[in-house]
């Protein structure tokens, strides 16, 4: 995802002279092409994220389209007030891009984990919250972001995740979920970098005779209400899957929507990280396995709940 982001942003930078890249002193060499092509529109803002977001907001107020990028906790919770006041309150089209969301940087410990970010960002008025499911969704989302005028938070995994889509997603729309696999019994709504595990869970369920639809629910705000209405009407069970706390992320948002819209909330199963810090050493795959977020665990939890 990370490399796709850098590559697509470099292209966008060449096409659109409003695009400015702000980095919080990460991505060594990652943005070399952007820097070479647009040196006057690339800024290493240092390890100073509050300033980076304020600077981005000031640029956006003056007609530019800044993208502020660093590791998830540092570009969200560290500077949450700047996102809230400088970007969102001013309706300034700042794009906050986070790398290493969820447990992508599991091995770096809880300071670098980000399983609460969507809940914080989602409650801020005017914010759009997007969690692309693969590299093609990252590229399509970035282009869609530049076509609209609201502040956006986009959370990505790291690099080297499985690529799900066969190629560019021409009809990508913010707030419109994408069906990856069709099915009839259970509907898995996956957001962000855990999409490959949700697809794996779908396969395992099908092998057990449970027909599973798998959806890349890439936009957590605004919700694709048509997708939700259809899912709650036509499926016996709706499952949210995210590498994020079960509090306040996609599962929380869908639960709120279900209660408000009169959908049968009993159909909802929320799969995410528990309400605790994950302190053990180990990489993402280990953390997913331990927290019940591997494809196998997800399938087993859905089968058990059926």
């Amino acid at each position, binding site marked *: 995802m990370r490399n796709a982001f850098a590559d697509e942003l470099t292209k966008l930078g060449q096409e659109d002279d409003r695009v*400015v890249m702000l980095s919080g002193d990460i991505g060594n060499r990652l943005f070399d092409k952007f820097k070479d092509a647009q040196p006057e529109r690339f*800024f290493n803002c240092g390890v100073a994220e509050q*300033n980076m977001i*304020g*600077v981005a907001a000031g*640029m956006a*107020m003056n007609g530019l389209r800044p993208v502020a990028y660093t590791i998830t906790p540092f570009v969200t919770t560290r500077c949450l007030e700047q996102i809230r006041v*400088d970007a969102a309150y001013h309706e300034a089209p700042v794009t906050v891009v986070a790398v290493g969301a969820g447990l992508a940087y599991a091995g770096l410990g809880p300071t670098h984990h980000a399983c609460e970010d969507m809940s914080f960002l989602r409650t801020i008025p005017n914010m759009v919250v997007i969690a692309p499911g693969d590299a093609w969704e990252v590229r399509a989302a970035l282009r869609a972001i530049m076509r609209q005028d609201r502040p956006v938070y986009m959370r990505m995994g790291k690099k080297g995740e499985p690529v799900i889509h066969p190629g560019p997603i021409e009809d990508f729309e913010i707030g419109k979920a994408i069906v990856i696999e069709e099915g009839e019994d259970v509907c898995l709504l996956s957001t962000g970098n855990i999409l490959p595990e949700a697809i794996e869970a779908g396969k395992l369920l099908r092998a057990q005779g449970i027909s599973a639809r798998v959806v890349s629910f890439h936009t957590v705000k605004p919700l694709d209400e048509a997708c939700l209405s259809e899912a709650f009407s036509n499926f016996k069970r709706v499952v949210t899957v995210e590498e994020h706390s079960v509090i306040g992320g996609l599962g929380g948002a869908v639960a709120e929507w279900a209660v408000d819209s009169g959908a049968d909330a009993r159909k909802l199963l929320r799969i995410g990280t528990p309400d605790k810090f994950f302190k053990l050493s180990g990489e993402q795959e280990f953390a997913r396995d331990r927290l019940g977020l591997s494809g196998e665990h997800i399938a087993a939890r859905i089968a058990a709940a059926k």
Partner: protein
Amino acid sequence: MEAAAMADSPDADVLRAQAARLRYRVIEMCHASKSAHLGSSLSCIDVLTAAYWRVLNIDPANPQDPGRDRFILSKGHAAMAIYATLAMRGFFPEEELLTYNKDDGRLAEHPPANMLPGIEAATGSLGHGLPIGVGMALSSRIKGIDHRVFALLSDGENNEGSNWEAAMFAAAQKLENVCVIVDYNKWQATGRSNETLALAPLREKWAAFGWDAHEVDGHDMDQLVRMMSDVPNGSGKPVALIAHTVKGKGVSFMEDDNNWHYRAPNAEEVVQARRELGLA
């Protein structure tokens, strides 16, 4: 003070008279609304007067002109001062000042976003104005539209780390079209600013962070006009003006008395203030 004491220019008298009218409007607003932050508003009136009547390249009839100078009241709690300034300078009708802090109006106790002509950034949470201003100054460079950015900070606001992040970034970017003015009235909400956090030596701090930093008399109109007009001043650095001011300036019984951070004057005090301001 760097500048030798000089006789005031005739223009300084004109500006002082304008500042007295502004101070009285602010005192009236505070009395009518019983809101806080009168002392903080009065200490920065002379800076605002010099900026809005002499320094800034602005057109109240065209408040969104891309080439305008930006002035950000980062110490948003002095909202009464910027509201009175913008109204008297013609950005919106003076009668609207009567709606300050009333239900269903545009003039809240801190300046709002995207609502009021002349307000460049919504402030109230301290430490936001300078980073935003630095972004505006960089956009001026990127877009090739020359303008300056002035950010007025309180001394207490220097407590916020985000300012120092912005200070180092602006210096690294050699943003000579940015000017910070610190309203150094020596008080913050509940105590002496230098006893709360160790601000002193403040000019040296800004200089150490890469700024062309000067101490000025924040009530000397000629000096304020000259120092702000000089931006960019050829130093190749962003400019910091540490403006020594008096909290509650202009009314004897408010000056340097921090009770006026929260107090509002009664009717009798308003009359006395008017007399002291030479408007009776």
